[in-house]
Structure formats: structure tokens, C-alpha cells
């Protein structure tokens, strides 16, 4: 593995290049901005987590005795708003993506460094306005803001929360714009499209969703705010508006938003699976193009949220069909990741545990998605705990597993320190166990008919809720441990070499932490992605052989 040895590290890196608060708040370095984002999304994650704990504690007993119903409604609304808009959507793209997209393609920075910094300030402004809404009295509309409840009937801080989300949307748009332009124009010499790591492909697909979807939610939330303030009636049936129009506009963004959360995570998992089994990814082009297919198809399936909303049954059929179609590229990815392990050299480092956990949980999450695409079953399970379980399998089992896996994988590069591996593996297993205990029982409760967003519930559902709450406690501990040891490792961790995992990717061919301009020289790429061994050694295996080894 000597060939991957990075240049001798110099003492100057992006962290110690400058000191002082101002050097961070006015930085244009994508790596420092990634750290600003990392700190702020972690903050929002723990706020959202506190709300999650309140939900689980309330549901421990059927009576609804811990919180009042109005408080409970605000708690689950704010859990959703914070987690979706301020944690999950920026999670991987704004932190790992921001840090790694330029490094992986051999660029010195993103194309528009100031816009990158601006996007963080916009995110913080949106976040502060939303926090103001929470402190001033909270929001109780559900994160979906369905009209006419949100426009006419709710007595909470809908306008402030909507404004926060509206503003935050622009940070997402700017991040997506920056990635697209960077990937198109700033690849190092020799870094062709089909030599790009799959992390880049998935970020490209994510960026497409960000720039095409986010403006629609922005204008929709703005219309809701105006409707609330000025009683104009665009969504209000009492004055001729159509409340279902809101649902169409909302889900036109919010369904693709799920792909903003899961696609980057899929990119991370592609990296982890290939690198921790020291193999080229099986079916590189299929994995790459399936990301784009998911991004494109993702825009055509929003109507599957409206199967029982009174849209026509024929519209329902079309959306059902398209939703099944989008399942295929996801299946392709899972099969290719599994096939990549074949004849690999598989290690069990913490990031790999998260990646394997991701595949396992995403399989369940994806398959239960088919239940919801199936018209006849969706009627029964929609708006129940079944759907709550399904999307947590995708968003926690998928997005957060990818995020934590990626964070551990690149932590030596980001911080220049190793995390304690024993604790890492332990907390990965803890999170996996806690997660399943929390959310698997909810599938059963959902099919039994327990509706979501219920503050009190019939007693026969209690057993599932007790299991869920027990699981959530384990999950909470599982999240706290990495938060503690990662912070600890920044000071006390073992110093990380430039390439602690012995990997061929560009980001590992520079020192840890990298210098401000990422590389001491402009890299020239002469190798394929995940090229551990020379391509002429390529093995053609099994009955399914191609005439020519796949050209990647």
C-alpha cells in the first residue's frame, strides 16, 4: 500500500492556519464552513432529539398524562420541523459534502466560496427565526403545515416558523448550486466523470433535487404565510381556494426532499463499502446512474402522499406505478453494494459497521415503502404508525447511519485525530439495537391501526409504545456516546496520519487535516475510482461473465 502514501505533512493546516473567532466567522474555506455547519446541525439535532424524547415519554402510557395535548402537538411538530429542515436536509451535504466535494475532485475550494459562507449564514438566520417561533409559543400544525388548519385554525407561530423554513430553503439552494457548478467545472486534470467517486455522483443528484425542489416549497410556505396574515384564500375553501393544492405543492418538494436526505447517505455507503472491502464497486455506472434516476423519478411520485386525500383514483394509479418504478434504482444499489463485498477484504471498522447497518435497515425501509406505494394497503396504513416507522427506517436507519458512518470515516481527515475505535463500534451496535427496538414495533402498531400524531391512544397499543420508548432510551445513549468521544478525540485522540485507512481516494492523498488549499500541488488523476489493484488483474467471476471486463 506504499503507493498511496501522502506527501510529508506540513505543520500548517486549515485549522491552525488562522486563529480567532473572526477567522472562522468570515472564512471562505469550504472545510471551515463544513465545520460551522457541523456544529450548528449537531445543535439542532439535539434540540430535535429532546423533542423526540418528550414524544416517547408521553406515549409510554395511553392516557396522555405527561403533556397537555396542545403541548404534545407542538412537540411532535417541532421535532419534525427541526429534524427535517435543520438537521436531515443539510446533514451530509452541508458538512461532509462541503468538506469533501472539492477534495475528492481535486479542487482547491467550491466554485463560489462566498456563496458557500452566505449559505451558512442564511441557514443560521432561518434557524434562529424558527427557534424564536419555538420559544415564543411554538407551532402545532405538524411539519406538513396542512391547510386550512395551518392558515386559518391554528393559533400558533406558523408565520414565524414558515419564514424560518423559507429562508433556510435558500441555504439549501445555494449549496446545491455550488456543488453542481463545482462538479462541472472544477475537476482536477484527469478526473473524468466516470472516475468520480460515487459520493460525488450522489451529491450531484442531490443538488439537482435541491435546486429544482426547494424553490417550490419556498413559494408554498410563503403563500401559507400570506394567507394567514391577509386572509386571501388561495388554500381556503371558504373563499374558493383548494386545500389539496397545498398538499400537491408541499409534497412536490417534500417527497424529493426525502431523496435529499437519503442520496448523500447512499453516496457515503458506496464509499464505505468499496473502501472497507478494498474492492472496486460492483457495477459502478449502475450505481452512479441509479442516483440520477432516483433524483429524476423522485419528482414524479409526490401524489402517493395523497391516495386518501380525495385525488382521483386514476391519478392514484399513475402515482402508484411511478412509485414502484423508483424502487428499482434503489434495489439496484442494494444489490450492487452486496455484490461489491464478494471476494473483498472486509474490515469491521466503525464506519463499515454503520454501512452494513445502513444496507440492512434500508432494505427494510425500502421494502416497507412498497407497502405504501401499494394502493390497497396504503389506504389502511397511511397516517398510522406504520408510516412513522417506515420513514424513520429511511431517515434514521438510512440518512443518520450514513451520516455517522461518514463522520467516523472522514473524522481523521477532518480533525487530524483518530476516534476511539472500541467506543465507536460499541455505540454503532447500540444505535443499531436501539433503533430497531424503537421503530420495529411501530410497524405492528401501525397495521393494528394506531394513528400517528395521537397524544392519547387506546390501551391495546401500549405494549408497542413501551417497547418503542425503551428503544428510544437506548438510541439516545447511542447518540450521546459519539458526541462525547468525537469532541474528546479532537484534543486527546491519537494523531491521524494522512491516510489512516490506506485508501486510494484523492482526499487521502494529502495531509490530515488538509492545508487550506487542500493539496500542495494540483493533483493529476491517472487512476479509476476505487482502484486498489491494477485493472489488468480484474477477475471475471461466475456464470455471469461479460465478454470484456466492465470499463469504468
Amino acid at each position, binding site marked *: 500500500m506504499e503507493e498511496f502514501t501522502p506527501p510529508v505533512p506540513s505543520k500548517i493546516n486549515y485549522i491552525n492556519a488562522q486563529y480567532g473567532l473572526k477567522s472562522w466567522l468570515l472564512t471562505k474555506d469550504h472545510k471551515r464552513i463544513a465545520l460551522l455547519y457541523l456544529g450548528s446541525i449537531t445543535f439542532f439535532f439535539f434540540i430535535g432529539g429532546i423533542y423526540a424524547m418528550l414524544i416517547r415519554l408521553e406515549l409510554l402510557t395511553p392516557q396522555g398524562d405527561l403533556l397537555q395535548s396542545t403541548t404534545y402537538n407542538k412537540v411532535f411538530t417541532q421535532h419534525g420541523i427541526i429534524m427535517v429542515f435543520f438537521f436531515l436536509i443539510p446533514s451530509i451535504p452541508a458538512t461532509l459534502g462541503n468538506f469533501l466535494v472539492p477534495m475528492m475532485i481535486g479542487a482547491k475550494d467550491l466554485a463560489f466560496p462566498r456563496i458557500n459562507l452566505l449559505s451558512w449564514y442564511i441557514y443560521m438566520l432561518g434557524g434562529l427565526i424558527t427557534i424564536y417561533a419555538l420559544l415564543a409559543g411554538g407551532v402545532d400544525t405538524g411539519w406538513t403545515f396542512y391547510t386550512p388548519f395551518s392558515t386559518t385554525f391554528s393559533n400558533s407561530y406558523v408565520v414565524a416558523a414558515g419564514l424560518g423554513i423559507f429562508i433556510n430553503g435558500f441555504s439549501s439552494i445555494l449549496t446545491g448550486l455550488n456543488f453542481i*457548478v463545482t462538479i462541472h*467545472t472544477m475537476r482536477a486534470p484527469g478526473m473524468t466523470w466516470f472516475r468520480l467517486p460515487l459520493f460525488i455522483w450522489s451529491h450531484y443528484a442531490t443538488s439537482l433535487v435541491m435546486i*429544482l425542489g426547494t*424553490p417550490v416549497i419556498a413559494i*408554498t410556505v410563503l403563500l401559507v404565510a*400570506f394567507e394567514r396574515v391577509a*386572509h386571501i384564500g388561495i388554500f381556503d375553501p371558504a373563499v374558493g381556494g*383548494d386545500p389539496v393544492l397545498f398538499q400537491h405543492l408541499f409534497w412536490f418538494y417534500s417527497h424529493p426532499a426525502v431523496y435529499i436526505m437519503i442520496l448523500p447517505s447512499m453516496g457515503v455507503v458506496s464509499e464505505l463499502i468499496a473502501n472497507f472491502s478494498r474492492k472496486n464497486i460492483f457495477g459502478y455506472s449502475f450505481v452512479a446512474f441509479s442516483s440520477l434516476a432516483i433524483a429524476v423519478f423522485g419528482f414524479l411520485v409526490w401524489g402517493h402522499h395523497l391516495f386518501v386525500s380525495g385525488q382521483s383514483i386514476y391519478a392514484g394509479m399513475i402515482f402508484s406505478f411511478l412509485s414502484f418504478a423508483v424502487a428499482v434504482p434503489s434495489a439496484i444499489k442494494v444489490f450492487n453494494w452486496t455484490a461489491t463485498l464478494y471476494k473483498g477484504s472486509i474490515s469491521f471498522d466503525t464506519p463499515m459497521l454503520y454501512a452494513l447497518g445502513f444496507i440492512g435497515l434500508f432494505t427494510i425501509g425500502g421494502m416497507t415503502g412498497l407497502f405504501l406505494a401499494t394502493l390497497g394497503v396504503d389506504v389502511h396504513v397511511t397516517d398510522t404508525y406504520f408510516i412513522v416507522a417506515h420513514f424513520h427506517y429511511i431517515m434514521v436507519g438510512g440518512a443518520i447511519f450514513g451520516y455517522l458512518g461518514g463522520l467516523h470515516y472522514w473524522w481523521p481527515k477532518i480533525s487530524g485525530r483518530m476516534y476511539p475505535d472500541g467506543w465507536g463500534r460499541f455505540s454503532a451496535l447500540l444505535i443499531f439495537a436501539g433503533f430497531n427496538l424503537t421503530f420495529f414495533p411501530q410497524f405492528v402498531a401501525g397495521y393494528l391501526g394506531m394513528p400517528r400524531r395521537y397524544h392519547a391512544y387506546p390501551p391495546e397499543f401500549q405494549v408497542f409504545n413501551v417497547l418503542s420508548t425503551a428503544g428510544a432510551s437506548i438510541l439516545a445513549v447511542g447518540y450521546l456516546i459519539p458526541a462525547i468521544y468525537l469532541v474528546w478525540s479532537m484534543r486527546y485522540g491519537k494523531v491521524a496520519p494522512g491516510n489512516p485507512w490506506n485508501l486510494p481516494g484523492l482526499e487521502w492523498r494529502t495531509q490530515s487535516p488538509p492545508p487550506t*488549499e487542500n493539496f500542495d500541488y494540483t493533483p493529476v488523476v491517472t487512476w479509476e475510482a476505487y482502484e486498489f489493484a491494477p485493472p489488468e488483474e480484474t477477475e471475471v467471476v461466475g456464470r455471469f461473465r461479460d465478454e470484456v471486463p466492465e470499463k469504468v
Partner: protein
Amino acid sequence: MAESYVEHEVGHPALQHHFANLEQQREAGTLGMWVFLVTEIMFFGGMFLAYTLYRSKYPEAFAIASNHLDIKLGAINTAVLIFSSFTMAMAVYSTQIGKRRAQIISLVATIILGLAFLGIKAVEYYQKYEDHLIPGSLIPGNPFNPDPHAMHLTQGVLMQHVQMFYWIYFAMTGMHALHMIIGVGLLSFLLYFSVKGRYSPEYHNPVEVIGLYWHFVDIVWIFLFPLLYLLGRHTGGH
């Protein structure tokens, strides 16, 4: 975001540190603006969808409301904007061939035409204000309350559907006007730096990129004018 983009370019007349060469920098700037314009299309798209839906739901109310718009001012504004697109194109062209005087004159003309558009728009808005056509309670103290006779409201057509038209009208033209205001701001930046002699045939990307933006804003109006002022104009009423 366009603003900060320009500020960014303008702050660094020469090559920025993270680009390999001017060509790469130019390519990134242009692509960035195109991508940004795509998001703008989606942004307006939500409103176009609402317009299409409610127009097909309440065609008569929309025709009546549309008849009350000032088509003369709308047409003049359309001409003003088309001409401003021409002067903007001239500004880009004269920068590319290095004619600074022509460049400054074109920019000034574009700014004046942009301001003229906004002025005419303001006159139109004021007429609507006088006629109590501002929807809902957007303006405190002047709720939506037009005179049904002046509107030639036919029996059975609901005033609230007329209000829906005006809400869409104000939302779309208001959003367009906001883009115009930002555009005039960007042009003023360009003018300031072109007087200082910043742009040359070698380095003119900001002029090009802001030109793209200006043309986009014009094109939005080219869609808005027929949809709001012209469509169904003579089928209204009975």
C-alpha cells in the same frame, strides 16, 4: 444570491485563488447563473400552477378581473422591457468588443428603462389601491372591497374569486417587480465598476451573467403579460 455572486466577482478583478484560469472562472460563473435561473423558473412555477388551476376553476371571475387591468400600461411596460433587453444585449456586446463608452451608455439606458417599468408598475398598483383591489387585508385599512358595478360583475360571479385573481396578480407581478429591483441594483454595481474601467474583452463575465439574469426577468414578464392581461379578455361577462 445573485447580489453576493456579483459582489464576489467584483471584489476580485483578476483570477480568484481557487480557479485554475480565467476560462474556468468564466465557465463557473456562467453555469452558476444558469443553474440559478433554473431555480427561479421553479420558484415562479408554483405560482403559474396556482394561476392555471384557479383560472380553469373560475374562468368568468378571472375574465372579469382581468378586464379591469390597465392593458395600455401593461403593453407599454412590455415594450419598455423588450427594449431594455436590447440595451442590455448592447452592453454585453460593447464590453466584449471593448467599447467602454457604448457600454456605459447601454447600462445607463437599461437602468432607466428598468426604473421606467417600475414607475409604470407603481402607477398601476396605485390605481388598484384606489379601487380597493388589494386582496385580503394586505394593506391595513384598505381591505379588498371593489365596487361591483365598476367591475362589471355579473350576477353569480363571486367577488372572492375575483380576489383570487388579484392575489395571483399581485403575487406574480410583485415577485417580478422584486426581481426587477434587484436587477436595477445589480446594474448599478455594473455601472459603477464599468465607469472605473473594470471590464475588458478579457474579463467581462459579470456583465454577461447579469445580462442573463436581466433577460430572464424580461422573459418572465413576457409570460405574465398575456396570462394576466390578455387571456380571456373578451370572453368576460355576459
